[in-house]
């Protein structure tokens, strides 16, 4: 009997998950269908699940008028994601190794330093001052990822993962004369692969989705990422449509077409949507492995 009970439960969960997935998918389907519809029919009849008057005009328009900008922003996003992820993973694992290594007296102090920033932060203003005045990150490529290279949460995740690697392996390496650098690069990193992939994915996602750093630190269009380009476009439309614009002389600016907004959304989501199914198993595995010790 238990087997059928389980089956019943399983079916129930599958149904729940299916319903939930459908709910998550609806906006995305609307966006895709919107981007493939003609502007006039969207304006007249609203959105639908199936494109109204199927056409690729919007994409032609986007790539025709803004191709250069979109491609540049796309490549900037790619560069930032790759560079950012590499740097972040290196810094994070190094820190994680330091606080997880056995016999290091100050490791708790270091762990506390990191932990402290999870509880208290200096706020936006000091952060902005530090980034622009002292580190001179304004309008630089580095400014687009350096502030995010150490996520404390992911660092602890990784430290936990390192702790799960049997200490005997490290010990035997030390007996053979390996120093910390060698242990870190030749033992911890290869053995920590799953954890590494997990945090890389988290970082990659964060860098890809980020529009805050460009908003704060970048004014040069060459450095716009695709998310910021999107944000900029939407922000301008919403502000102008909200009526606040009346304060500043009643500026009239034609907002981009409804379908263009949708097409931009699809373009932004696309790479992640394609990549996700292949990598998602690492996410789950990584978190579980990191959380269970031994």
């Amino acid at each position, binding site marked *: 009997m238990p087997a059928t009970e389980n089956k019943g439960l399983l079916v129930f969960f599958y149904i729940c998950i299916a319903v939930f997935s459908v709910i998550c998918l609806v906006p995305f389907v609307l966006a895709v269908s919107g981007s493939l519809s003609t*502007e*006039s029919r969207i*304006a*007249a009849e609203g959105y639908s699940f199936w494109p109204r008057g199927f056409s690729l005009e919007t994409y032609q328009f986007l790539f025709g008028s803004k191709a250069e900008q979109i491609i540049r922003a796309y490549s900037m996003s790619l560069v930032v994601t790759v560079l950012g992820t590499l*740097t972040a993973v*290196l*810094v994070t694992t*190094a*820190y994680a*190794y*330091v606080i997880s*290594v056995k*016999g*290091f*007296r*100050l490791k708790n102090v*270091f762990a506390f330093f990191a932990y402290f920033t999870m509880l208290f932060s200096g706020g936006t*203003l000091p952060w*902005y001052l530090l980034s622009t*005045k002292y*580190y*001179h*990150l*304004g*309008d*630089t*490529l*580095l*400014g687009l990822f*350096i502030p995010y*290279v150490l996520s404390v949460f992911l660092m602890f995740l990784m430290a936990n993962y390192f702790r799960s690697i049997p200490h005997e392996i490290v010990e035997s390496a030390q007996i053979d004369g390996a120093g*910390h*650098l060698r242990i*870190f690069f030749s033992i911890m990193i290869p053995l920590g692969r799953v954890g590494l992939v997990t945090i890389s994915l988290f970082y990659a996602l964060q860098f890809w989705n980020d529009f805050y750093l460009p*908003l*704060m630190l970048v*004014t040069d*269009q060459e450095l716009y990422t695709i998310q910021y380009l999107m*944000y*900029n476009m939407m*922000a*301008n439309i*919403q*502000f*102008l*449509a*909200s*009526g*606040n*614009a*009346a*304060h*500043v*002389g*009643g*500026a*009239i*600016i*034609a*907002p981009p077409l409804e379908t263009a907004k949708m097409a931009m959304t699809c373009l932004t989501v696309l790479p992640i949507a394609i990549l996700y199914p292949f990598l998602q198993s690492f996410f789950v595995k990584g978190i579980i492995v990191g959380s269970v010790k031994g």
Partner: protein
Amino acid sequence: MNKKKGWISLLLSAVFLLSACSQGNNESANSGNVGSTGGEETTPSSTADSTKDNATLAPAKLKIVLYGDESNRMKELAKTEFYDVVKKEINAEVEFQFLPWTEYGGGKTDLMLSTGEDFATYTDTNYMVKSVAKGLYADLTPYVAALPDLSKNVDEASFTAFQLSGKQYAIPVGNKPNSAEFYSVLVRQDLLEEVGMTQVTSLAELEAFYDKVHAVHPELVGYAGTDARRMLLYDYTDQNLYWQNDFIALDESVQDDKIISWFETEEFKAYSNLMRGWYDKGIIPKYAATNVPQLQSDWNSGKAMIWAGTAARPFEGAATISQAVPDAKLVNYFLGTGRPKISRGTYSTAFFVSAAAKDPERYLMFFNLLQKNQELYDLFAYGIEGTDYTLDANGRLTKITTDSLIPDWLLMNKNFIRFDNTVPDDFIADYKAWDDGAIISKGAGFNFDNTPVKNEETKLNGVLTEYLAPIGSGFSDYETAFPKALERLKAAGIDKYIAEYQKQFSEWYAKQSK
């Protein structure tokens, strides 16, 4: 041994962290240089010229922040022609920085001000009052003499609007007929003629127009907005009301210092009932309550019959609509006659200079260039003749590129503005005469200091969005919804707010009339 290990790992982590940071320093310095050399490519010759012309002026750097999208052409010109001209005229290297509109009057602008950056951008009176209280704007009074041409082309009343306790904190730009903003109805004349009408002079005619068009084009919405208190003025009051903010109005037909708590008036009741009628009739679309941005897209894509009018909207708006409806024609109508148009001053906006600016005077010299003469106006607003636009024999403008430069709404000055071929002569004549007989609001130049009633103001704004805006735009019925809204208003402290406003206004008014 343990100790040694410890130090090594400490070193390891320190090296990684430091390498990340120091890398940041080096490279940012480098790329900073790359950026500025990019801008300097064109300078050698112009510097040579300018040192001759401007021997007395030391070189300066100016950063002008603008909001919105930076077009490709603007980017190009900012580094070439604009840069050269400014360098030549006032020996300053100007850099334009674009921010999203969300950062206007707060956000990153605030951050930049608070962290002591050297820049200038535009503002409104609300933002000015707040920022001056925090000491973030430079006092520009000593430098006003650096604006010889601008002060000729910008109305004097506009300067007063940006003064606080007699000090000039922002420099107005623009000079355009803008009295009676939103007091007229902007009507799609093509639709009006299609249903056999010629003009709209009263509310009854406007509603008849809606009915007739609705019968022919049921897909069109009536009014692409939710606020019609100005255009309907003739139909619910004998006063000539002018709003200071959402809560407070002035009656411009009497010379006194009395302020009116708008929501507590009989006029608000009458107006709400009119709007309720519009809502029931379908003149205001049902989705307007939740989707205001959609209304503007509706208007822009030619899906609406009327909009709130301003002097410039018939030609500003026509350019947008004609993409969707090529033969669209827009005309302003007032729903009554006999009350003078009210103006807040003819400026478009005003530039402030950050308190940390090294050379505020040079910024003012730059603002002066923006409104100096036809030649510079043409350059900043339209670009280069032959490349960006052409002029015909009558001085009419045809744009070659659609990219916007320094936003033309910002610069718009009736002494310099150029119209394109599609704007009929009689319209230009109307436009230029729009302000004839207009009066400047008796509240123009008054800036409310909200510090004593800051909490009340925040709460009131909450009540406004939740309760009063829906009543005012007809989504909820006045009779049923207002008692509760009024209760909330009182609880939020409307009385204290009004009293404080009245006090400050009376003091200021008394000083003005002396």
